[in-house]
């Protein structure tokens, strides 16, 4: 199997580190070599954060080689668009469309780039939804990233049983049920376009 490279972009506080961790643990359970990064910077909340996971038979560097991203998970639209320079024409874009304004947009100095983001994802095979709203309907907006994982799971050689077992072992006990629902929702409602 060729190494699969997954990029994650988000905002501090959205749970990117846990999401990266879950992907790594699921990949290992499925028998693959795996390496990841998280870069969280200065702030606990609100700053730009990103992570990467590489899954394969043998993975050397945890860093995704430029242009080799297979899947990008944008936990926030702008934070998905930010990484376009490491994507390629076959990259799958999975984007939570719930906008979290950065300071320059909160202060009306720079308009939030909604149009630019639309142009961005239209260049790629994309899967979009307000996953936060979807997760809220299912019981808890915090399970948004699990919906994204459900969408992504369709493209990875890891069984849904392994994903669910990993989620069960890594989310708080009282959140297990909503995470199971969130995963299924993502897995079933965003069918592959290619």
């Amino acid at each position: 199997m060729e190494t699969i490279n997954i990029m994650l972009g988000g905002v501090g506080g959205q749970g990117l580190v846990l999401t990266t961790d879950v992907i790594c643990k699921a990949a290992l359970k499925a028998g693959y070599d795996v390496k990841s990064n998280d870069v969280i910077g200065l702030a606990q909340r609100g700053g730009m954060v990103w992570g990467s996971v590489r899954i394969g038979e043998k993975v050397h560097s945890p860093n995704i080689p430029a242009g080799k991203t297979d899947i990008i998970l944008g936990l926030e639209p702008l934070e998905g668009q930010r990484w376009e320079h490491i994507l390629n024409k076959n990259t799958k874009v999975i984007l939570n469309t719930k906008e979290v304004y950065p300071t320059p947009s909160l202060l009306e100095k720079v308009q939030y780039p909604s149009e630019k983001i639309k142009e961005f994802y239209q260049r790629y095979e994309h899967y979009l939804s307000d996953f936060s709203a979807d997760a809220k309907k299912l019981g808890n907006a915090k399970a948004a990233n699990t919906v994204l994982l459900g969408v992504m799971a369709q493209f990875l050689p890891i069984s849904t049983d392994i994903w669910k077992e990993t989620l069960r072992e890594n989310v708080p006990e009282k959140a297990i049920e909503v995470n199971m629902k969130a995963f299924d929702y993502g897995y079933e409602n965003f069918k592959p376009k290619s």
Partner: protein
Amino acid sequence: MNNQEKLVLTGNQGIARGFYEAGGLLAASYPGSPTVEILDNIKQYKEVYAEFSTSEKVALEVAIGGSFAGVRSMASMKHVGVNIAADPLMSFTQTKTNGGFVLLSGDDPGMASSQNEQDNRIFGKFANMGILAPSDSQDAIDYTKAAFDISEEYHLPMMVNITSRVCHSRTPVVLGERKEVEPRKFEKDVERYCMIPPHTHKLQHSMKERIEKLQELAYDSKLNSLEEKEGTDTLVVTSGLLYHNLKELDLNVSIYKLGMIHPISPKKLRELADKYERIIVIEELMPVIENDIKLMGIPCEGKKYFSFTGELHSEDIEEGLMKAGVITEGKSEKRPPVESVKRTPLFCAGCPHRPIFDILKKLRKRVIGDIGCYSMAMFEPFQASDSIISMGATVGITKGMTKANGLTGKSEPLVSVIGDGTMFHSGLPGFVNLLHQKDENDNMTFIILDNRTTAMTGGQATAASGNYTSADDMKVDIKTIIKAMGHENVREVDQFDYEATKKVITEETNKPGISFIIAKRPCALKFKIQENTFYVNPNVCIGCRNCVKTNCPPIRMKKYHNIDKLKSSIDPDMCAGCSVCAQVCPVDAIQPKGQHPDHSKKGSAKYMRQETQKMKLNNEEQE
């Protein structure tokens, strides 16, 4: 591949596990990125004593004590932490180590979360320590264990030097069993433990001898590995993550991976130099390995092809090796980043720092800042931090600037801000020093942001946390300490009572002399505000943007149906309920949910005043 026994761990978790498996018994640290999770993780092991000390210096001293007493001990800290710990370190490392001793230093090439980029391998060499540099989480476990073994066998303090990327990267590991180590005895031996001349004269020689002996181990140690390829005349010497970044390129070069980067075996390097035409060293930051090899009289190259600053990714390694002529063409598809809106970090919703810096901005004060979440006050829209240097430096700098201004006729009131954690770490000596050569014309106001949390690193306790939660055991009362020093003018504020806080800051900054203001609200991330969230009534909002300028994540201008002008809005999912926006609103357009709007009261200020009573602010002397 059988992954049954495998786990994925971060490098930080690996260090913690390695400490445990090595039979480590005592660990101390001060929270700092990228190494904070090491002690967080060590705390899970019941057999071990672990503490976050008040500073890296104290943490190092606690670990020295553990080593003296004969048990395997580790101090872990970020690179700049070693600066404050350097004083005990530089004397301690002269001693013949008793219980195994490891100093874990987390370097930050690229400065993802640090105020500088210093290369602490220099520190390790300076302090005559052996240095191991893990490349992934398995190395983190294995090298930590090896470091303890070497430390005890060679009576040598060891440094494990890890970079931020390895700290946070997750890679598969296989766990081992814990090895219980027989504690050694502390026996009175003044020549060994009392660092004064003439004892130290002899020790200069024994330190040198220890490192020379370790060079012999380095010759064929399993920590260093040689991967030779046929048909190449180039040897790349590298260490840490860069080994994996190089492997990613799959080049026809031989690789000497140094797990132990100090000392390097001259015998081994001479053998390799005889075999290879070119030796190229790939390392981040300073040319430490390169210079060591050059000092052996062996020609090698390195920094002429690779940057002295930032991280070296596979693409950078490829580019450097192309410059060096080792490879002729690259595979890299590196492109410049796309244009995108910056997302600078900001105070959390409900952060108690927000009203303080909103007030300081409005009062147009010169603010001497410090290290902590409040460093972010330097960003827009507050821009209310005019200097940030190092932990606790604000106190001395504020005094020095005030004295210099007085001498040169530029008198200006200065505000110094410092968090409680930073104050306990290294602000207190500065506070005592203010008492020396006091001048009644000096105008300095020290605002202590007592949020009872080391917030920026993820909410570790401070020495004041026990005042707020029974989960923490230290209950130092800051006001009592400052008063006991002899400072008379000390006031407390609840910064969620915006007007009252503004009044106190205005009064104190307008009056000459030394003032202390202790802002008492705890970190909103660690101690949730149990309050109603707020909403904007767009029919009342006049669009003045006072609330927006507090830069709270959920607050922004929005287009409402049937209203032409943009009006403020609050995202209910993100609002924490601090009420600061409601209090800066001039027309009471912001109201708590679940209560009847009461335009005769300012937002929930009434509620907050009741809270202030509950917090028992102790200002009776002033009132």
